């Protein structure tokens, strides 16, 4: 250190820095963070949207309610002789889960739980029960949705961005067309896709039938628990891909042309130019896109609200939809807030992991 004591760095500009971020920071604190903290607070109370009853602190009850799980091992029914009973098809018979979860004083901790999933363990059947089955399904569906949408959508968006970043006459027209689904409100697009997915004579079924020369059997895309989530996934990707295409495009433009020239001379083909010049040059953009898509995927709401309402049989329940349903429709702000908080914690964990993995080394 020099004689004049510790040096102030030239690169530090606290005053200018704070002044520049202050307006945005204050706004975000007021309109995002403060409400969120309120919501966070609600999640520990029994706050209702509408109620003459006073709000009470309930501790973690809302969370326990949401994430409570239990297991139950069912042994096959036996007859008086202790021999297992089989039905006509030879399948084992088990007591109903209901008999344990409803008014069964021997299993008070299972009261009101529902079967989530189960498997066979020898002759026994293990059942995992959830206190809030809808929430659990919403949670798993959300994770599936994110896991599929985030990579697929970012990759497709990049592909589109590369396609329309060419120097071609009329490329603007295509750029505009690719962006169109984003321009139309998601609510409207969702309505439109209900027509397309219609199980009887929707366009998709008609098209597939036509393409397969009539071999294809129409599927009730949104009415079938096996396909509904995938239908929503496909439609969501289709709808939002233009949004992220635009972000990729702006990233593409920061890559200096001279690097492509150098690579071209060194014998790189199109893929190699992408792999070694474009992709590394898009690093910052990629981080942005992945984070944004992940966040947006977690926030899935409108499509479900308009297209399936969480059905059929909860196959399209997702967290935000549940948060909204509980908060507004069911007037249970506390419950909705608790879901928001759980969502926040999950996403924060994921994004911290993401940032840790993609940190600059």
């Amino acid at each position, binding site marked *: 250190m020099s004689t004049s004591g510790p040096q102030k760095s030239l690169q530090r500009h606290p005053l200018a820095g704070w002044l520049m971020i202050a307006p945005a920071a204050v706004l975000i604190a007021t309109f995002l963070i403060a409400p969120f903290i309120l919501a966070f607070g609600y999640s520990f109370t029994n706050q209702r949207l509408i109620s*003459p009853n006073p709000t009470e602190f309930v501790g973690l009850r809302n969370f326990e309610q949401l994430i409570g799980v239990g297991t139950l091992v069912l042994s096959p029914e036996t007859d008086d002789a202790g021999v297992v009973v089989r039905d006509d098809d030879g399948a084992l018979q088990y007591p109903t889960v*209901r008999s344990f979860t409803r008014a069964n004083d021997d299993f008070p901790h299972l009261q009101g739980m*529902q079967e989530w999933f189960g498997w066979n363990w020898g002759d026994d059947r293990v059942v995992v029960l959830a206190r809030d089955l809808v929430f659990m399904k919403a949670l798993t569906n959300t994770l599936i949705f994110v896991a599929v949408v985030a990579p697929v959508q970012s990759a497709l968006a990049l592909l589109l961005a590369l396609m329309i970043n060419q120097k071609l006459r009329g490329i603007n027209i295509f750029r505009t067309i690719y962006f169109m689904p984003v321009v139309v409100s998601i609510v409207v697009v969702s309505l439109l896709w209900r027509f397309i997915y*219609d199980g009887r004579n929707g366009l998709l079924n008609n098209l597939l039938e036509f393409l397969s020369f009539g071999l294809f059997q129409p599927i009730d895309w949104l009415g079938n628990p096996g396909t509904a989530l995938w239908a929503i996934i496909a439609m969501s990707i289709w709808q939002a891909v233009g949004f992220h295409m635009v972000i990729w495009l702006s990233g593409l433009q920061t890559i200096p042309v001279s690097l492509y020239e150098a690579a071209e001379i060194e014998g790189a083909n199109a893929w190699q130019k992408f792999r070694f010049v474009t992709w590394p040059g898009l690093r910052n953009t990629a981080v942005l896109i992945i984070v944004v898509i992940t966040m947006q995927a977690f926030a899935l709401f409108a499509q479900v609200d308009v297209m399936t309402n969480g059905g*059929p049989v909860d196959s399209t329940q997702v967290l935000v939809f549940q948060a909204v349903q509980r908060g507004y429709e*069911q007037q249970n702000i506390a419950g909705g807030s608790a879901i928001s908080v759980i969502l926040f914690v999950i996403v924060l964990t994921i994004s911290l992991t993401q940032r840790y993995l993609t940190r600059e080394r």
Partner: protein
Amino acid sequence: QTELSLWYHGAGNEVEREILLGIIEDFNTSQPDWTVVLEEFPQAAYNDSVVAAAVSGNLPDIIDVDGPVMPNWAWAGYMQPLQLSEGALDGFLPGAIGEYNGEVYSVGLWDAAVAMYARRSVLEEYGIRIPTLEEPWTLEEFDAALVTLDASGEFEYALDLGMADQGEWYPYAFGPFLWSFGGDMVDRTTYETAEGVLNGDEAVAFGDWWQSLFDRDLVPGTSQDMADRETGFIEGDYALQWNGNWFGVQTLDAVGDDLLFLPAPDFGNGPKIGGASWQFGVSATSANPEGASAFIEFAIQDEYLAAFSDGIGLVPATAEAAAMTENYSEGGPLEVFFALSEAQAMLRPVTPGYVFQALEFRKALSDISNGADVITALDAATDAINADIERNNGYAVAQ
């Protein structure tokens, strides 16, 4: 003059606005004290707007409220009882009177009713008896009719229940089936539990039958698109349609004299349809409740009831008014609906918890129709409803 604000859910409907503005103008000129000012909201957003306003303390003087929601708002303290003169509600259809906790909080200028839309020619062709109010279809009869119609191969589906409409339609239109089976969404004696009524044997019987409709492909499922709902019956793709009176005129125009509006089937405990539609009430925060009540009392005059009915096709709230209308007067094309309302209408559970119960009922129905285990689905709804009641201290009225 004191201004009274009035919120109404009909934004975007010109006819309603005209009539309402007419009433307001008449009222404003009829007395010197009050001036009513109208603010309209789109229906889909109305409840949320009111709740938001309540949360922020911005309610108007007079609010428009959907009948079954009223107890909830009254309980929450958004509304206060009306101050109507004695006998003002004489002759009103029960569905048009919003009573909660022994007080009248709201009153409707009309009621709505649902009926089974059918074509006389079709029923005759397949030899299906045309039911009457006195002798409605029984469960077996109705089910058989559906099977017959389906078996004919003429129709894509025998019956359209309107599963495309995911809102209040389910409890409004299908709740009465449950009631007719003998179940309910909540035990109406105490309003404190759904156990045994929503998951009792009657309810399970209803659920099984309900599921069978879908399993047998007699009716389109929840993924039905809105276009099909609107055109399916008219185009002849659906043989029967369970639909509200607001579609009556439109369908009549398309189908003509062949169209029949049939009463609800009797599933064992008498035929039922839902009652209560939009009604007017006074907000709890109104500084001028007497003025607000005065306006409401002014608005429920027969001529206005008739005007509304003529304008938007709903069932006028009194027989006198019905007589003055095009559609519900004697020999009018929709006359039958007035009769249906009178004879079959039953209110949805009059409890603040109804709002929640309706949601659970809706979810259970749609899960069942999509193959969920009937008992499990009804149990889940029952538990959820009970939990909600408990969370709200039994929806006891606050002191």
